[in-house]
């Protein structure tokens, strides 16, 4: 249930931000707005129904989307309405499109493709072979992360352009190169999920080769660090920018972890341990949620407000960041302990493997409360700002 909650928050937040920002770039026509509003209504009602089913312990779906499979139908219908509304608008933009608009379009398309793909298990042919089934399932889930990252990183790029006032940020050769690199990773870099599944060897080797291109992102981040630092000095007073910088730091930490996990010889020790959870939570909270909170704050004009609300948002920011560092490290420690005891010491009993891990998981739980408190404080402040603001779209 917590995974579905995180996914719905991220996808809903990503779509919400890109729609409002697209509308600021060029106003949607009334037909397109109606289509997008229909999407929102079906999407929100479906999410509520999903959680009603969860609370009644009614499941039946697959990993991450564990609700009764029939609820995938309204999700697909809603997404088709979004696609029609968004792409009609997209095609009406005649000028050269900045990269963030392309990224938003890419994310919406690939979410649709991967959501359909992760429902292929309804077709018997896919389930005749367990290896085929698990490969397709994790291909879809892995690529879906890339799809929402396109939407969210697009929003981050948009905010950077708006804050700095430099349009070139979204229209230079370097960002196009990294766009194609991330698109290739979206398409082919999902294999680390199934390295230990005895599929055909080429599946593993292709994924390994593609994942090593992540070193280019890594090197690029280090190279641009100095420039980012001077930018930070200039813009550090802006709350929105702090969220972006925090997400960049988390991107750096998680990219380091991802590269390590993508090497099969290392993956052997990390797979099935809490290091995978650290990577997933570090990404969804540290990167995705920080960009979304920054973007929502930007839309609500957090930097134009003064006094209590802005101060509380800043408190929330620091509480969530400090807690998240402890949260993330405790998961890594838990993963190292589990991997060491299970794979190196070859302890057979699950209870015995987990006994020293529990301590790290207790710290993880306590720091999780800190993450919740920090993010709740930010959300409450945003809701107060939203009450004052009459119209966003």
């Amino acid at each position: 249930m917590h995974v579905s909650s995180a996914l719905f928050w991220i996808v809903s937040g990503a779509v919400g931000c890109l729609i409002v920002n697209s509308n600021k770039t060029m106003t949607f026509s009334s037909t397109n707005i109606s289509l997008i509003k229909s999407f929102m209504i079906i999407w929100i009602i479906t999410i509520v129904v999903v959680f009603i089913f969860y609370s009644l312990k009614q499941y039946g779906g697959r990993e991450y989307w564990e609700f009764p499979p029939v609820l995938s139908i309204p999700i697909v219908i809603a997404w088709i309405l979004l696609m029609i509304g968004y792409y009609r608008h997209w095609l009406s933009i005649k000028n050269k499109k900045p990269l963030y608009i392309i990224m938003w379009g890419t994310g919406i398309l690939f979410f649709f493709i991967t959501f359909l793909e992760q429902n292929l298990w309804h077709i018997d042919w896919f389930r005749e072979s367990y290896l085929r089934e698990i490969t397709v399932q994790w291909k879809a889930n892995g690529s879906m992360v890339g799809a929402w990252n396109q939407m969210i990183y697009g929003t981050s790029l948009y905010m950077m352009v708006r804050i700095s006032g430099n349009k070139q940020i979204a229209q230079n050769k370097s960002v196009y190169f990294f766009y194609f690199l991330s698109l290739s990773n979206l398409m082919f870099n999902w294999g680390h999920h199934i390295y230990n599944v005895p599929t055909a060897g080429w599946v593993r080797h292709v994924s390994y080769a593609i994942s090593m291109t992540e070193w280019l992102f890594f090197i690029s981040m280090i190279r641009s660090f100095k420039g980012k630092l001077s930018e930070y000095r200039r813009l550090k007073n802006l709350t929105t920018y702090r969220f972006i910088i925090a997400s960049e730091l988390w991107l750096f930490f998680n990219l380091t972890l991802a590269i390590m996990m993508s090497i099969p010889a290392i993956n052997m020790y990390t797979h099935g341990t809490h290091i995978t959870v650290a990577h997933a939570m570090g990404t969804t909270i540290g990167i995705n949620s920080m960009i979304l909170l920054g973007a929502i704050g930007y839309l609500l004009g957090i930097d134009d407000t003064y006094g209590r609300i802005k101060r509380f948002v800043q408190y929330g920011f620091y509480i969530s960041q400090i807690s998240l560092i402890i949260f993330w490290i405790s998961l890594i420690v838990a993963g190292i302990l589990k991997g060491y005891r299970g794979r190196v010491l070859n302890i057979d009993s699950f209870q015995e493997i987990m006994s020293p891990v529990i301590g790290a998981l207790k710290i993880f739980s306590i720091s999780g409360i800190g993450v919740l408190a920090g993010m709740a404080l930010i959300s409450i402040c945003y809701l107060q700002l939203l009450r004052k603001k009459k119209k966003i779209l």
Partner: protein
Amino acid sequence: MFLRIWIVLFIIFISYTIGLYMFCDDGTILKPDENIIAGRNTWQEKNCQSCHQLYGLGGYMGPDLTNIISTKGVNRAKTFIKYGTGKMPDMSLSDEEVNNLIAYLSWIDNTGKSEITPDKIHWTGTYIIKEKAW
């Protein structure tokens, strides 16, 4: 130029996806019978994957069950599933549901080993799980 690169990448993606669907396994796996399918449905309806993993994928509250049948035996697995343990709740499953789950887990067990041993690691860092795959 941008559009061309995009289209080429997309075509490669579609071709790779179709190739993957067709050839990601060696095609020698036994098709699931009715009991296995029923066990698979129970696995999903009871949301077993939220706590357990298969090939390391799933929740982390409980152990990986990929090779539970070959390592712990059918009777031990049945007892755990039927009555639960200190941590695992009793899911109130009927004998038929338990047997179907055992059939499903046995079917998965026959697909391979979840744990990779150091001798499977190639000098490039990748695994060699099947000689055939090379």
